[in-house]
């Protein structure tokens, strides 16, 4: 194979798609740490810092950001190719909330001063962000959030609690949805605030999840003073801004790669368990495989729409539902054919990728986060099908 030259970051967006794909593969081969491929759990900063900084150094950290902000300026279609190749290679997620959520939001709604202040620090890995939206009383009904920010001179004083904040223990900044007007309709009294986690009055308490991993946290705010200029966008317009980010999140949650990975594990496991040749298993596998192929085809139609520069409607919820439930169905099948191995904590001996119980557990929250599948179905039935009520 001819060695593929990796062009400077500024030239990547101009490459033809297939060539770009080859470049991404070559980049991963040359740069991605072998021992971090397909890690069984979400990595902490201490574990993925090396890779994050390598990406930063190469200028590859923020594929979706415009070039003038230090990104690669890739089209949505190219970003999807990049994601596909990352997933194919087994690249772990980094502490990416600054890259995929906060950065794009600041680019779209932030002041020039805010862009200067925050974007470069994401690009160097100096600021690691986490997402403080959900609260104990505000999950599916996010607009019911109660953490409040009250103006006191040049500062907002924040009081309240966030929960399920992924990797908050690794982050030094948090972006918050806070209530700034208690009298208004609930969506209309919410603002978007950036908070340095070193500020006095913030307490982070890790929560152990079902993977027995400290991945999400509770974050408490007790009279936390936040400079006024850390408010992004207009006062009381935080809800609209946060919502604008969601559509893009959903197509990424609908990427079939997670299911494709699980299906490849199912095949290995079936061979190992001696059931691969069984007609009953073949039928079940074929059904899952076809579900995957059809999901890919459906996903492709959305990618094409993005390529044509169209924006996606609420029907993108379908992708999120189909992908996450397929992922679960595959891990269910793994559990069912694994016999007693299904109950083991560690991967099956002889294959560190065959982490049956781990994958089964990991697949559970996919139907909860990013808008639960019940909420996605509500969106489909109301906003797409026009059901009354």
């Amino acid at each position, binding site marked *: 194979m001819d060695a593929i030259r990796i062009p400077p970051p500024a030239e990547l967006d101009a490459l033809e798609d297939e060539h770009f794909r080859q470049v991404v593969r070559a980049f991963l081969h040359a740069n991605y740490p072998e021992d971090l491929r397909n890690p069984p759990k979400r990595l902490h900063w201490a574990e993925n810092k090396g890779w994050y900084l390598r990406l930063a150094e190469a200028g590859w950290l923020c594929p979706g950001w415009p070039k003038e902000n230090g990104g690669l300026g890739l089209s949505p279609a190219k970003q999807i190719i990049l994601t596909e190749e990352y997933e194919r290679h087994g690249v772990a997620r980094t502490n990416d909330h600054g890259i995929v959520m906060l950065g794009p939001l600041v680019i779209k709604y932030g002041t020039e001063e805010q862009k200067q202040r925050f974007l470069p620090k994401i690009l160097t890995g100096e600021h690691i962000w986490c997402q403080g939206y959900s609260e104990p009383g505000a999950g599916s009904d996010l607009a019911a959030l109660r953490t409040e920010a009250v103006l006191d001179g040049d500062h907002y004083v924040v009081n309240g609690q966030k929960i399920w904040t992924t990797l908050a223990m690794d982050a030094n900044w948090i972006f918050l949805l806070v209530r700034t007007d208690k009298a208004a309709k609930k969506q209309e009294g919410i603002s978007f605030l950036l908070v340095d986690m070193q500020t006095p009055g913030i307490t982070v308490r890790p929560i152990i999840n*079902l993977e027995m991993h400290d991945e999400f946290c509770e974050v408490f705010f007790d009279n936390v003073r936040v400079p006024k200029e850390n408010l992004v966008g207009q006062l009381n317009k935080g809800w609209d801004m946060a919502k604008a980010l969601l559509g893009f999140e959903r197509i990424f949650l609908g990427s079939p790669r997670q299911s494709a990975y699980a299906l490849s594990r199912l095949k290995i496991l079936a061979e190992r368990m001696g059931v691969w040749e069984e007609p009953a298993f073949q039928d079940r596998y074929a059904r899952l495989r076809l579900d995957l192929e059809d999901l890919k085809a459906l996903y492709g139609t959305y990618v094409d729409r993005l390529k044509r520069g169209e924006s996606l409607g609420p029907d993108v919820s379908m992708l999120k539902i189909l992908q996450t439930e397929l992922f679960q169905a595959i891990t269910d099948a793994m559990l069912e054919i694994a016999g*007693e191995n299904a109950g083991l904590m560690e991967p099956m001996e002889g294959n560190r990728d065959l982490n049956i119980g781990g994958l089964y557990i990991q697949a559970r929250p996919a139907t909860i986060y990013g808008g639960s599948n019940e909420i996605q*179905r509500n969106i489909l039935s109301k906003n797409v099908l026009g059901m009354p009520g």
Partner: protein
Amino acid sequence: MSAAETDDRAESIRMIRDSAAAVAPRGGDLKRVRDLRWQDPGFDAGLFRQMGEMGWIGLRVPEALGGAGLGVAEMCGLAEELGAGLVPEPLIPCALSAQLLAACGGKGRLPALLAGDAVVLTAWQERADTLEVPGSPDAPRRFLPMAAGADVFLLPLREGGRLALYELPAERCAPAVERTQDGGNLGTLQPNLQDATKLADDVGTALADALDEAALVTAAYLLGGMERAFAMTLDYLKTRQQFGKIIGTFQALQHRAADVRMQVALTRASIDSAAAALDAGAAGDARRAAVSRAKARAAEASLRVTRECIQLHGGIGYTDDYDAGLYLRKAMVLANQYGSASLHRRRFMAASPEVEE
């Protein structure tokens, strides 16, 4: 059975269930269970002894051999209560060993086992997802539940056309132990025949029968667990508010809860009828069909129900602090023990000829 006998029987089952409260208090918390997780041996030896004193290990062993001489329905009732409390002590595999030793006339360590002084595990399994016992002399025995706490192993060995039974002290052949999702462990034993003492010449039938019962009792344990997890979920649906409403008012969730309820009802009906069949002396294919039907149902339903319970809770269901996850993990471990749903479906079809209309 006469009406009076039926009443007596129901009373006996009720008493056994009530006695389980000593170990797994109804409505009690799961602190004890949590504290034992992933701590060798994964259970409390003192409590195992208490189970012996209460007559549970020998519940199915004839009175003449020191057991309680009770029926399968009593054993299932007990297991259900223990499942609701996620009791980790290895009652089911030890009761299997007790039945096996009783079948050979009360040999070996039966008295110590019945008293709960010795944890005796039967090392019958040579591969995953099977109920077959090849009895190979040198094959490692796999998936021994709570092997980290075993005192004695019973080793079935093929000799000629028969399965002989040997006893092996655990201190002479420490098993390799792997941790399981529920906080327990599974052992692999490399049999060392030099240290084995022969107990009996032919235990093939007794072992097959005991494995059947263990499968059914495991189904009952799973039933207890899924019912408790579902009760917890119903409570949550009736109290958690979002969008200014109790989430249980959303019809999408109401239907999901109704579906779960039906799975629980089917599982209970399947187990109760199987236990009744065994107590009435069902043998051969009829017995195998009844057991396999119940275990297939319980395995599938317990996984499905516990998954639903997590989903219906939202984020809190995905935390280790919340108990719903403990039931999910237990189902992951037990669903396939003594045969997966798929194994039992196959076995059912082999044992149960189609009824001609």
